[in-house]
């Protein structure tokens, strides 16, 4: 009798465990979540950062933005280990990938998509970037100029990237 009860309890536990395995939560697998979020485009990733604290924290991880940047830019697809490390350190010194995307790559992609016919969907943005070969090196150059302007505390706000400001759509 005791063994049967134990067996039943074990069975229930097993079923519960199975149930838990079936109710998979992505929030338990942060690395997987980061991998997925890194495949979004910039705007969607920023929106994803508004879901919950965990997603917000992930949305601030520079490695996630690094994946986003490399995905949207020609010449940054598969970075070799050595090259990737030095690029990472340089970008980190200049302000990080998240900032790089916000200041340089994002507006540039918007500008390119706008000039490519005004299609607003995200997939064509990536296609437009590939078609125009927006290079990582050009974005980094612009980023470095902006970073340099912020050094030294000048009175005027840095304006070298003003030309990338996307037009305000008031329609």
């Amino acid at each position, binding site marked *: 009798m005791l063994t049967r009860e134990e067996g039943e309890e074990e069975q229930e536990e097993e079923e519960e465990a199975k149930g838990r395995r079936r109710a998979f939560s992505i929030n338990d697998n942060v690395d997987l979540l980061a991998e997925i979020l890194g495949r979004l485009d910039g705007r969607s990733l920023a929106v994803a950062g508004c879901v919950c604290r965990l997603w917000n924290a992930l949305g601030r991880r520079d490695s996630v933005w690094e994946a986003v940047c490399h995905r949207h830019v020609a010449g940054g697809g598969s970075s070799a280990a050595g090259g990737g490390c030095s690029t990472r350190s340089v970008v980190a010194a200049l302000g990080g990938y998240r900032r790089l995307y916000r200041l340089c790559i994002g507006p540039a992609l918007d500008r390119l998509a706008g000039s490519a016919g005004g299609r607003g969907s995200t997939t064509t943005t990536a296609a437009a970037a590939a078609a125009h070969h927006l290079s990582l090196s050009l974005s980094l*150059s612009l980023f470095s*100029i902006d970073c340099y302007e912020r050094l030294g505390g000048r009175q005027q706000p840095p*304006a070298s990237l003003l030309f990338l400001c996307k037009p305000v759509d008031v329609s």
Partner: protein
Amino acid sequence: MSSSFRSDVGTDPCDSVGDDRWWMASASDRGSSRGEIDGLLQGAGYRVRSTDLRHVAIGLEQLESAMVGDQCAASSAEAVVHYNPSDLTAWVDSMLSGLAPDPNLLRHPQSTATANAWADPTRQRPSSLHRLENHQQHRNVPAVSLQSMEEEEDAAIRLVHLLVSCADSVQRGDSEMAGSLLDQARLALARVNTGFGIGKVAGYFVDALCRRLYPPPLCGGGSAANPEILYHHFYEACPYIKFAHFTANQAILEAFQGHDRVHVVDFNLMHGLQWPALIQALALRPGGPPLLRLTGIGPPSPDGRDALREVGLRLAELARSVQVRFAFRGVAATRLEHVRPWMFQVAPGEAVAVNTVLQLHRLLGDRASPEGGDAAAAEPIDTVLAWVVGLKPKIVTVVEQEADHNKPSFLDRFTEALFYYSTMFDSLEGGSHRSGGHQTQQQQTVVAAVAEAYLQREMCNVVCCEGAARVERHEPLARWRDRLGRAGLRAVHLGSNAFKQASMLLTLFSGEGYCVEEVDGCLTLGWHSRPLISASAWRADDDASPPRDHQTLLVLQDHSSSVVDGDDHLQPAA
């Protein structure tokens, strides 16, 4: 023959037979027979009888006003078949008959006034100015809806004409005539929109001519505006300087491949905006960054603070953050020809790059003869180029305005400057039609306005100053090629990477209007197919004979190398 064409045009009561007879009479006075083909037009490929010239002229003018004033007329004209355009008379008539016959156009009472102006070359006409006025009267009546635009166009054309005539009188030394023309120009300015376009440019040129005729008591025209601030706003408002920097950096980067110690000499440091991108690119180059030394030349700061050193410190901070070994030296000099190569302390074994953005033209002098005699007195440019070559640089990047503002004749310079700067101002306006957020909109207008002030200052120097005061002596790329070639430099092709980068930069910047072109290994950036700025790269020719003071240079280098060995530290050198 002409009478049959007259019937096509329509019976004009004012177009009396008397005029016709008078015209034929004057033609026979000049001795030409009735059916003779006009020689000048024949040279251009058109066969027009000299007796029909007046008729063709009237017809062309009517055609022009009809096509400009009426859109649907142009489309209906496509349905008409025209034969043999070299027979200009028949062509004009068939075009006119193809358009909807407009009574206003065809029977214009004032057309005879213009026709008379053309018909009689022997009658005294003081200047083409009056012809332009007649032209303007004729244009006043048709196409009522576009009347104001045409008037404004004509007023603008007249204004340009006045400016050129004024410049001509200035060149001849006739200051009275120049003064009166200038007054007329000011009056004409009132009828043109001076907010944009040709009106704005003309306004600036009127001011410049005024300043030349009546120099202000404070000499030099030195405005209170800091040239660095003007330059910075010009940098932001349009892509010319950015294009220059990026192209030069690309060339320097490629030339520095494989070298561990590199030295860049910048002829005009300003805020040092060119160098962060180079520092970052060197940090990321395969094989690791080299030891970078930067020597920046600039004017001495008026208020005692060391502006060059401040820029150097900022660059050093940036370099430190990306882990590039960096050393800076500032050389303060009022004029570039006062600089000597020993001030750079080039170490042996260093790869040297010389970077001049819009600086070399300041070293030129007056051109002696139209062909530019090369045996003239040694100009500062020759001295400077000699020691540049003596440094044995791996690359010399030269960026210059693509214009000829150093012609010996003032009128030529003036007309060139008029076209060049109107294109520049057009590009500023064309580029500034990007809208941004609230603050950035204001910022952008301010930036654009200050950029215009920068251009205005440059333009004033071209127009108003002479002799040593005139520093904006722009010369086109072809002349620079000759000059640099004679000095012992060989051209380096800029490569497709630079071209792609420049194109991408322009697409980002505003897209429409700007165009990058490659000319024989050099890149030019222009507005609507008019090149405005050119970037080229050069290297020291290995077979070039050493300059005269080469021996002295060697001695000096030995001397400086001992200093550098002990001095090779990582923080910026003052």
